[in-house]
């Protein structure tokens, strides 16, 4: 097993390097550079050149790349032109919010998806199953922002059950219990919106996994032992069908990223996704670059996590 993990990690490393090169090239292709937002537009061409030289902007690309990577490793993501401060600082503020939102979304995803998938799979081709499958088709067809808007309108504005924007009620004292409850309360509606869409894949996967496992020979063995139908489902079918879902966990992270980008925007939730969209709109390219890199790394690590979980839950891989 450890060999498998080490080998998997060895593949991850070049993936991240490749990603960083891509992001670097992308950053180079964007108009302007680190100086664009900082300088006085009236500065002379000579003075500009001196500044450029000082910042290493005239160096060959590979040296610039090396400098950039060195900066990254030390936590230096550059300067935000919009906030006039370190990108690291800008992002870390929003990171907490997005992590909270993601965790809420994940929890709801599994809370909703697993029961639905289990019911749908166990009673396949029943009216209940048709309803659930119908919902998943709807979920596949509906873009997440439309879904989120509908939810916001119903639960936020019409019913007024949840706050409609922000990540915390104004005037809260950070560190108090109320502050954290308010944070949680603000993340619920966007979190559920993401969950309602992201359950779709899990439900369908779980359903087909169960329908498949149901027909396996070892299920007949279990029945022949005299196990009741409930036991057959709980001990043999569900267990064997849910384990592959565990492996989806890492991939779920990737899909969360796309989810948060749109949902944060609609709910005015100050997370990384909203920051990303705003920064694009304001042409704050150093932030865009940094976020792209972070999102990319998150996806790669998510895939890594998936593979490792799969390795741990399946003895056929674990032993090897």
């Amino acid at each position, binding site marked *: 097993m450890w*060999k498998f993990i*080490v*080998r998997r990690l*060895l593949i991850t490393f070049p993936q991240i390097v490749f990603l960083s090169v891509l992001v670097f090239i992308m950053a180079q292709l964007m108009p302007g550079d680190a100086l664009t937002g900082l300088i006085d537009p009236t500065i002379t061409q000579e003075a500009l050149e001196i500044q450029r030289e000082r910042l290493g902007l005239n160096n060959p690309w590979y040296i610039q790349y090396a400098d950039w990577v060195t900066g990254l490793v030390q936590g230096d993501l550059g300067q935000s032109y919009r906030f006039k401060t370190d990108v690291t600082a800008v992002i870390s503020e929003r990171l907490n919010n997005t992590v909270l939102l993601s965790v809420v979304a994940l929890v709801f995803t599994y809370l909703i998806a697993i029961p639905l998938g289990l019911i749908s799979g166990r009673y396949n081709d029943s009216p209940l199953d048709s309803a659930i499958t119908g919902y998943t088709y709807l979920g596949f067809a509906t873009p997440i922002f439309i879904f989120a808007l509908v939810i916001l309108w119903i639960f936020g504005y019409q019913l007024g059950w949840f706050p409609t924007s922000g990540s915390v009620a104004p005037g809260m004292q950070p560190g108090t219990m109320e502050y954290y409850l308010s944070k949680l309360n603000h993340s619920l509606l966007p979190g559920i919106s993401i969950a309602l869409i992201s359950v779709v894949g899990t439900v369908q996967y779980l359903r087909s996994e169960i329908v498949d496992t149901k027909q396996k020979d070892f299920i007949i063995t279990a029945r022949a032992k005299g196990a009741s139908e409930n036991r057959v489902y709980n001990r043999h079918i569900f267990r064997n069908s849910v384990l592959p879902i565990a492996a989806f966990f890492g991939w779920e992270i990737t899909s969360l990223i796309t989810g948060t980008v749109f949902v944060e925007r609609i709910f005015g939730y100050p997370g990384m996704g909203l920051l990303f969209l705003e920064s694009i709109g304001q042409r704050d390219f150093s932030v865009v670059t940094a976020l792209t890199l972070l999102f990319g790394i998150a996806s790669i690590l998510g895939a890594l996590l998936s593979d490792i979980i799969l390795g741990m839950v399946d003895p056929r891989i674990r032993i090897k």
Partner: protein
Amino acid sequence: MAFLDVKDLQVYFPIKGGILNRTVDHIRAVDGVSFELEQGKTYGLVGESGSGKSTTGRAIIGLEDVTSGQVLFNGKDVTDKKAKTKDFRKDVQMIFQDPYSSLNPRKRVLDIVAEPLRNYEKLSKLEERKRVQELLDIVNVSSDSIFKYPHEFSGGQRQRIGIARAIALKPKLIIADEPVSALDVSVQAQVLNFLQEIQKELNLTYLFISHDLGVVKHMCDNISIMYKGRYVEQGSTKDIFENPQHIYTKRLIAAIPDIDPKNRERQFKFRQEIAKEYRESYDRYFDGNGLAFGLQSISSTHKVALPEKG
């Protein structure tokens, strides 16, 4: 000059391991196998799963890479994949075990049987159809079924369609890899009879690969017994069944259930004796790695894997 001459054939599969996934060892699927085939005869290759019998057949026809050794067909070296000329590929055909998966389910019988014809012969549509109908006649599948799909046929019929495809180019050698293992007894009888008939008609040579000693005994002139990639015994059908020398051959023969219940006691005792002999004389027949020794001739037709006398 032998019709097919296989000399010291070795087929190794790499075992990947370690963090860098490099080849750390090899599985010696076929580990130094030699035999000769005479035209018009049936040569049986017997062994249990993992013995390398199928790999041997697949390596000869070119479905596996040969690690070392030589395959001569009509005196020509055809070991290398590149050396497998158009003629060779036409003359040597294969019949597979599973009649359910070896035919493309989306193709009609016409296309399945005509495929080799299309590759090697330029026929007009009409000629092609006539040939396919003739072939289906030979294998006793109603020739009006050329527009049907494989799933519309029974297992035996499918196997015969597979045979029709194999004989479409009038091959000289057919490698039959467990051709009847997936079939019911009565269907098996049909296919075996049929293989014998076309053998006479077309002067075919068979390399008949099977785990079923009863079938092999019925079909073959010469038999080799394979175990873990090596031959343990080679001889005429009579040699193998009436005078088995290697303990593994004896075990195989003892394991065949006897179809006459009167022999039950005798068979049971025989099996126990063999089991005892196997335990007691294991070292005489297998080397330190549990593999067979090299073959020693004990008569003009009969060879057994025994340690060299000395």
